[in-house]
């Protein structure tokens, strides 16, 4: 897989990444979800400590995206408990909004707002959700646009940017809300190979600053260097999870072995 090779030259400093022993960011217990009669998520249990970087992989249709989308209620779970930052996710709209404020999300197709400039994309939520004064929101937005290395694009529209730039804006947009957790749903799958690295670099930077991250991705180089845990899902279940080194060199479950052999040996 060419992406894997490309990601080999990314650099990450694991010594900076600190995982808390006591502080729980997300706790999922016995979560089940059905689409009609189809059981898409089966008894998911996952405890994420603050500062953890978790990579979730698995074949398409395995429920990995659905799982992380349940965490900020883009999908509703029917059974089980999800607690984010101490708040239990129920159908209470106030709770949902509270959680969404603390959880940032990046999508495969960026989902920037095409009718707003880059700067407006970034300031929108701080102004309307956090009730921040416009000037302060713009300062924060520029700060994060500089972090993702595109402050000069602030007054352009998303349609004028490349895919990699758009995804970096999407990350900056989430960061402007100062989230405690970041969810990434295949952030590099829609990008050309040469743009993948610029997005991964930003994500590594985030990890080094101690952001709690859940990434659905097939960037195995990223998983090796950044993740402290890799989760393999298949048919709506967590099949295997481990630290990256043993996960890749010594997978236990048959399906994990099959999956890894398919994506790694080309």
């Amino acid at each position, binding site marked *: 897989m060419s992406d894997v090779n490309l990601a080999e030259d990314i650099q990450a400093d694991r010594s900076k990444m600190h995982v808390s022993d006591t502080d729980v960011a997300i706790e999922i217990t016995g979560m089940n979800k059905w689409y009609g009669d189809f059981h898409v998520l089966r008894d998911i249990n996952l405890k994420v400590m603050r500062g953890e970087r978790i990579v979730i992989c698995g074949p398409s249709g395995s429920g990995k995206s659905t799982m992380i989308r349940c965490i*900020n*209620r*883009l999908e509703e779970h029917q059974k089980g408990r999800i607690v984010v930052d101490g708040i239990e996710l129920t159908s209470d709209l106030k709770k949902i*909004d509270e959680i*969404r*404020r603390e*959880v*940032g*999300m990046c*999508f495969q*197709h960026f*989902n*920037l*707002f*095409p*009718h707003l400039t880059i700067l407006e994309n970034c300031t*929108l*939520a701080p102004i*309307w*959700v956090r009730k921040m004064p416009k000037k302060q929101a713009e300062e924060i937005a520029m700060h994060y646009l500089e972090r993702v290395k595109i402050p000069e694009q602030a007054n352009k*529209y*998303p*349609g*004028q940017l490349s895919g990699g730039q758009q995804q970096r804006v999407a990350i900056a*947009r*989430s960061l402007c*809300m100062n989230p405690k957790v970041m969810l990434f749903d295949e952030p590099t799958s829609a990008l050309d190979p040469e743009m993948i690295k610029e997005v991964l670099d930003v994500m590594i930077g985030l990890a080094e600053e101690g952001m709690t991250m859940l990434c659905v991705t097939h960037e195995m180089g990223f998983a090796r260097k950044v993740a402290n845990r890799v989760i393999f899902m298949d048919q709506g279940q967590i099949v295997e999870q481990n630290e990256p080194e043993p996960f890749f060199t010594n997978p236990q479950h048959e399906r994990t072995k099959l999956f890894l052999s398919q994506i790694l040996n080309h």
Partner: protein
Amino acid sequence: MSETNFAFVATSDKPQLPAPKGTTGAIGWVRENLFSSPMNTFLTLLSLFVVYSTVPGLVNWAFVNSVWNANSLDECRALTENGACWGVVRERYHQFLFGFYPSELYWRPILAFALLFVALVPALWDGMPKRGLALMGSMTFPFVAFWLIWGGFGLEPVSSTQLGGLLLTMIIGVSGISFSLPIGIVLALSRSSNLPIVKSLAVIFIEFIRGVPLITLLFVAHVLLNYFLPKGVNFDIVLRVVIMVTLFASAYMAEVIRGGLAALPKGQYEAADALGLGYWQSMRLIILPQALKISIPGIVNTFIGLFKDTTLVLIIGLMDPLGLVAPTLADQRWNGIVVELYAFIAFMFFIFCFAMSRYSMYLERKLHTGHR
């Protein structure tokens, strides 16, 4: 060197050359657009022939051979054989503009018309300084216009039966347009909502109104409403017509906007949700601006349709421009003149519809921000 050796390394950049002659500029445009293929050439020549064989005749009829100064059709025919007889327009244009509005009070609808443009400026021009304040001012326009046209509060009252012509068209058209858009938006959002009761109410309303001819609704406004309303409550016929036309247009508007809502990628809703925006915030800031932009052609289509549909009020006896044709023909002097009257009315409608159409094109260009 063998024939299969395809190894190659570029040693220098190839220069950027100007485009070949005749492919750019005016000549290039003509070649590209008018004579690019035998079929295209044929169509170009055919179109030129059609223009050549119709336009001169039309110009002769409307301008060259036309007569402005004549007091009757006979007088006019004596002056020209194949020219338009605009004398009728010269004599009666005020009727087509104002109906039977008292002529000494014409300044009132004229002032209201002028104020309409003042009120429209902040609504149509988003770069206006102090726009918020100006929009508040625009909000008062309906009341000012109502007062100017119908009188009362110190102005001499004018009854609805005296209203007519373009004035009536404008009253119904402008109020219909300005109220049907917000009502249409609310209906479209209700129909796309997850709340079953709200949704079914919107569906019932839209399907009922769309399933009934406008004329029926106008008859309801004209005759039947008296039975539905409590005794003693009787409001103005023009107001009733405005309500019916507005409801009719808003049902169509709702479907046009729902099309725009459905055309938005799901990711836009999700991104707005994920950022923690509430329902109304995400609708107002993210979804509607984009959905309305997509729907502009359909919205303006509905506006134009509504504006032209106002002529149907002649069926319930209101004197809109078309309704005034019959009284004009009843005048012995002008009996038999038809084309000129309808041409004049068509021209009046065309001005307004064309203006709306141009504005919508401008708006679409302005709101275009590249690809999503």
